[in-house]
């Protein structure tokens, strides 16, 4: 109905369609971000006339994108009615895939997480297994929690993600996970739910998550460092995520520490290995006991031992912290962040010893002005930051003015003509692959 309305309005005046879409998109984003919510404010901020604003708002109410909310502050005369974005018009499916765990969640259209689930999973069990698991849990969560139909998927993968050439184009996952080479992971997931998919590296989504809901809330310049089996960093500078020319910004694990890579001297695996050696040769009585009890050791045990005062582990984590801090210091001098958030399994387990090591190196090697108000904290969000960030990625992509104009008249990004074409192409190529090979088949 609303679609007809938008179409009718443009009869004989083709250029006005674009203008209508542009004004719809502009007004929706003003309301959605809270920049302007009353008609008067919307007229002022959009520089559109009263009749146009009234018409566009009516259209968007009809499309189910906006609703009239409570009365606002009166500035003389009647109190104005505030417009509200309907964040429940659709939902966003988000997932963060890591080396040893997967996280899934459903968010509303403001990127607010509504439900989340984390479970252990091995990346090397292959793309088919992980894909199947994601689809099963998403199906279950959507049904169980009775959330609205999805509008998009946000995915965080363990490695850099190349920038796609055009909108709705998915990028191959091969750069990210070597063993997934050639597997159309993103295409399959996108087709499975019939919605557009947007992928970023895990560290980039975590950085966005920390900026939106974690320690970096309200700050425009932050660095997030993920300390796990691999080490990488994300940067938000002047409010924007820095992705780099190829989308591979932040690979600080490849910095050299002496002859080795930082990852190879301060990553989770090497910490566990050193802990194992100390348990076996008696340098750490706590780890020796833990090894006897469990038969294996991980960085979690080493962090726990350090918290209980095991001197070897305190020293080990402090040393790792200093090495990470030395890699971070030049970055800190370069971008002058207000905050450095440290996350990942090593940070979660490493506790105060690790943080003290990082602080020591960063503060020692930074310019006094750069370090004057600089805070270095441990992430409170854990793996949830990846989910919140993935939701934020989808929100930013779907509501980017150029993309929004393509679907706003249709009520949902799923109906965006470019996405529909892309979906058809993906389905066609999947069908071609599934078809039996032509010609003679060997007996």
């Amino acid at each position, binding site marked *: 109905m609303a679609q007809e309305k938008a179409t009718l309005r443009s009869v004989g005046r083709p250029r006005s369609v674009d203008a209508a879409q542009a004004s719809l998109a502009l007004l929706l984003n003003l309301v959605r971000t809270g920049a302007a919510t009353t008609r008067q404010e919307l007229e002022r901020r959009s520089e559109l006339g009263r009749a146009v604003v009234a018409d566009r708002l009516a259209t968007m109410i009809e499309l189910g994108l906006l609703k009239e909310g409570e009365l606002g502050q009166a500035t003389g005369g009647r109190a104005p009615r505030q417009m509200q974005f309907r964040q429940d018009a659709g939902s966003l499916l988000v997932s963060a895939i890591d080396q040893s*765990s997967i*996280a899934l*969640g459903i968010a509303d259209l403001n990127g*607010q*997480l*509504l*439900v*989340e*689930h*984390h*479970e*252990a999973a091995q990346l090397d069990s292959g793309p088919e297994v992980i894909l199947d*698991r994601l689809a*099963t*849990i998403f199906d*279950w969560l959507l049904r*169980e*929690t009775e959330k609205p139909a999805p509008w998009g998927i946000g995915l965080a993968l363990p490695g850099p993600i190349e920038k796609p050439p055009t909108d709705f184009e998915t990028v191959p996952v091969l750069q990210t996970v070597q063993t997934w080479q050639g597997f159309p992971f993103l295409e399959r997931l996108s087709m499975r739910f019939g919605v557009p998919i947007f992928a970023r590296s895990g560290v980039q989504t975590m950085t966005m998550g920390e900026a939106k*809901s*974690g320690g970096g809330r309200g700050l425009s310049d932050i660095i997030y460092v993920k300390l796990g089996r691999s080490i990488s960093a994300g940067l938000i500078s002047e409010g924007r995520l820095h992705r780099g020319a190829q989308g591979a910004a932040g690979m600080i694990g490849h910095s050299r520490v002496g002859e080795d890579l930082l990852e190879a001297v301060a990553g989770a695996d090497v910490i566990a290995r050193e802990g194992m050696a100390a348990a076996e040769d008696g340098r750490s009585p706590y780890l020796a006991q833990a090894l006897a*009890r*469990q038969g294996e050791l991980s960085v*979690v045990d080493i962090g*726990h031992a350090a918290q*209980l005062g095991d001197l070897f582990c305190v020293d080990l984590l402090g040393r790792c912290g200093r090495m990470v801090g030395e890699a971070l210091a030049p970055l800190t001098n370069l971008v002058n962040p207000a905050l450095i958030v440290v996350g990942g*399994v090593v940070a*979660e*387990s490493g506790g105060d010893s690790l943080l003290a090591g990082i602080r020591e190196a960063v503060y020692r090697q930074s310019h006094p002005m750069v370090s004057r108000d600089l805070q270095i904290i441990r992430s*409170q*969000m*854990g*793996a*949830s930051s990846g989910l919140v960030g993935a939701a934020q990625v989808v929100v930013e992509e779907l509501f980017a003015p150029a993309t929004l104009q393509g679907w706003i008249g249709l009520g949902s990004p799923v109906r965006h003509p470019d996405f529909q074409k892309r979906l058809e192409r993906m389905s066609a190529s999947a069908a071609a692959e599934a078809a039996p090979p032509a010609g003679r088949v060997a007996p």
Partner: protein
Amino acid sequence: MNSKTPGDTAMSIAGLGPHGERAVPADQIQLTPADAAQALTRRFSVALVLHTTTSDWSKQELAGIAATLGLYSAALVEVVDCNFDVDLQVAALTRLAREPVDAVISIPIGNARVAAAHRDLTLSGRKLVLLDNAPTGMLPGTDYASVVSTDNFGLGQSCAAMLSAHIPPNGAAGILGYGIDFFATHEREIAFRKWMGSHRPDVTLVRERFAELEGAGPAALEMVQKTPGLSGIFAVWDVPAMKAVRALAQNGIELPFTTVDLGNEVALDMARRGMIKGIGAQFAV
């Protein structure tokens, strides 16, 4: 029974925390003598907000909390029974935010609807320890001190493994699920389904939900009637499991059940070789 100590038989923790955290086993958390001495002099007062105080799980939990607090001269000044009612919980937390208590231990009933009340309690300066789950969006350190939980994922997997022995090839198993957005029961059901999917892909899974405890019996009956050849049921905790067992027994139906939480009734039923065939529960240490 065997002669092993709880520490020897402790299973590894299968589930991850509300933010993907790896859990620390309860027996590895200790107060230093200095902290303990300080706690003794402060004489903290603590309130407890439970979903119910009538189940055996709650009684055991309450007894454990009161005894441990007592060791450090902390007083358990109030126990609130919310009777599974979200509004009661919100009202209790709002009131406690103005009462002279140092800390509150609470089991959030549901998810988004109780998040704000929990957050406000922390903002009022009281320490908040959560049982079983953290509402989505709440952060450790800022919004709560910590979460103490059983390994719900592991319990769901154990129940699937125990029920599997009673399901014939290509048979059907039922899940008696809780129709409220509740982390702990979600995790159990997800884990049950995952175990069955990977170990018994031949088994068809069916599911009925109950929103209130009284609905558990009728839901189980409906599942049996709708699914010819249903060979066993997993109920997400012990109280609804026993309601379902009684409802089926009254109708002359006998089916193997597995469930979570070591309540007296399910334990007795299992010992009497009744319908309860397995219970997933963890050592209190």
